[in-house]
């Protein structure tokens, strides 16, 4: 799964910076919501509970129960008894290496996505580039962060495949064959990572933009009146303030890549043995010959993505504190 993201219009209202930025901001931060005094006359229709009912039902039926059922299945053997053998079954070469490759790809695409995304966002917001550029780039980021799966895979095949446009251009114009001389292969770890960047970088940009906006102009000016150069501002004030947000978004990007399947399926198919592909094949056709193991696999995935998100939450809350 990839995360869709909001584009970032310059208005606050539309919950732009993808929910992550905004959701976390609301997290644990008690809003001063008015609590209505309960009216003395009894209402005939219990609007309150009625209104929230669908939401709760939905949450239970389509989030809690399925997850719990998977957890249950992970600890159940074919006969229906409680067992650890499914979990134990995860520790085979095939599965462990699948997890490991997934972690590496997620880590690589998250790290690169974060660094590149940060650089581009800084360039747009603080690089004194034309104003309209930001809005256009943010909208594009919203689109690009959604552009995954077959279309994305195909776009990269058309660009960097053996007969891709860029491959051919590099060969004819610069006499450099990325496949033969560069040892590059699109259908590999780095090929997939490079492709993942197409939605990782925009996600980073959308999430970190509000944090960069939050770097008040006055801080820069105050630092300057105190004699600081641009570099000194970033070293003592700018980067330290941004750092928690960057770290948090890294976790977000990691979780995002970890759960992605469509692009990998379309690009590397079953050649690259990542966890999501493994699980997909299991669901499709019981590739592992063991539903319990499949559930265990899923549970393993949930644990990893949860961990990444918890890190994000904790770090974001810390950053919150400063900015009050």
């Amino acid at each position, binding site marked *: 799964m990839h995360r869709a993201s909001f584009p970032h219009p310059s208005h606050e209202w539309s919950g732009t910076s993808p929910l992550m930025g905004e959701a976390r901001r609301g997290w644990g931060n008690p809003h001063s919501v008015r609590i209505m005094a309960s009216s003395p006359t009894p209402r005939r229709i219990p609007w309150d509970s009625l209104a929230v009912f669908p939401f709760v039902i939905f949450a239970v039926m389509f989030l809690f129960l399925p997850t719990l059922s998977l957890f249950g299945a992970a600890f159940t053997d074919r006969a229906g008894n409680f067992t650890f053998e499914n979990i134990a079954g995860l520790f085979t070469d095939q599965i462990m290496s699948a997890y490991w490759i997934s972690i590496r790809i997620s880590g690589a695409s998250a790290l690169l996505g974060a660094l590149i995304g940060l650089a581009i966002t800084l360039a747009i917001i603080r690089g004194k580039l034309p104003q309209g550029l930001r809005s256009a780039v943010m909208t594009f980021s919203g689109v690009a962060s959604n552009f995954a799966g077959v279309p994305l895979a195909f776009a990269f095949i058309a660009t960097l495949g053996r007969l891709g446009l860029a491959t051919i251009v590099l060969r004819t114009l610069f006499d450099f064959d990325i496949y033969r001389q560069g040892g590059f292969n699109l259908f590999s770890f780095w090929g997939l990572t490079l492709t993942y960047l197409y939605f990782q970088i925009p996600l980073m940009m959308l999430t970190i933009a509000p944090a960069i906006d939050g770097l008040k102009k006055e*801080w820069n*000016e*105050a*630092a*300057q*009146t*105190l004699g*600081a150069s641009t570099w000194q501002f970033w070293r003592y*004030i700018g980067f330290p303030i941004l750092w928690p947000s960057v770290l948090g978004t890294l976790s977000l990007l990691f979780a995002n890549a970890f759960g992605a399947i469509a692009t990998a399926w379309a690009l590397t198919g079953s050649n690259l043995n990542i966890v999501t592909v493994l699980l997909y094949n299991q669901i499709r056709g019981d590739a592992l010959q063991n539903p319990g193991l499949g559930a265990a696999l899923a549970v393993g995935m949930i644990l990893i993505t949860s961990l990444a998100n918890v890190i994000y939450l904790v770090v974001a809350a810390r950053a919150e504190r400063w900015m*009050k």
Partner: protein
Amino acid sequence: MAAFLEVQNLVKSFGTNTVVKGVNFAFDKGEFISLLGPSGCGKTTILRMIAGFERPTSGAIRVDGDDITTLKPNERKLGMVFQAYALFPNMTVGDNIGFGLKIAGMGPEERRARVEEMLKLIGLPGFEKRYPYEMSGGQQQRVALARAIAPKPRLLLLDEPLSALDAKIRVSLREEIRAIQRDLGITTVFVTHDQEEAMSISDRIVVMNAGNIDQIGAPRDIYNRPATRFVASFVGHLNTLPETAFGPNRAIRPELFSLTPRPDTDTTLSGTVSDVGFLGSVVRLRIDVNGTPISIDTFNGNATAPPQRGDTVTLHLASKDVLTLGA
């Protein structure tokens, strides 16, 4: 004596909009000057040009003889306090105050000593390890002040530093700022739109109107001898006197009326009381003099009760107190 802060023919235009229209002034070392005027008059722009955040379209700025017009903000050795405090949120109070010193290369021991000194000066001893978000607005602004003066700048700039604070804090803090400034003898430029603020703490006030300086002078002079109609009405209350009796463009301050004759009063007006405002030490009466509203301020007198609404009163004034307003 050569002026310490000199501004010559300073002009600032944004495209076709000229915000500062050729401004001149010169101030001595140690003076506390306010730039006073309504929003948009150019006062903040001038301050920012002195600080280096706006480049003048033309003109020169000199501090202690040095032409700083083209210098970058971080080369000017000035101190600045912002309306929004602008304390660095990721640093403690101690680190904030010591920041300018650190940049200047001062060693940690020296820095610590100076930070302690500053904290004592602003009345927050022991606050070194606090973070900005743990402090009130007034405290943050004081820390901002300490941060600005710690590196011993030759000029201190304050951009509406009190506007974001509660009324009571505003009054006590402005007096503190003035006291510290006097102690240290730093030449200070203070921007505000609040005339009471400017009047109470400045040595001299620069009253600005739409990009031009209308008057420069000590608070007393500005108040009692306003140069233009704008200055007269912007600073303090102004009563426009009826043309028929006094001629055109005549006005007088509310406290110069009295309800009983004084040795120097030579003219009278009579009218009916339309409103009585009891402001504590001052009683403000609104009087209808044949259609012209006049407001007069008298002190609260324990013995005599103020007039009531509807009473007819006679106002005594001295002709010498009548202001003839310029443009």
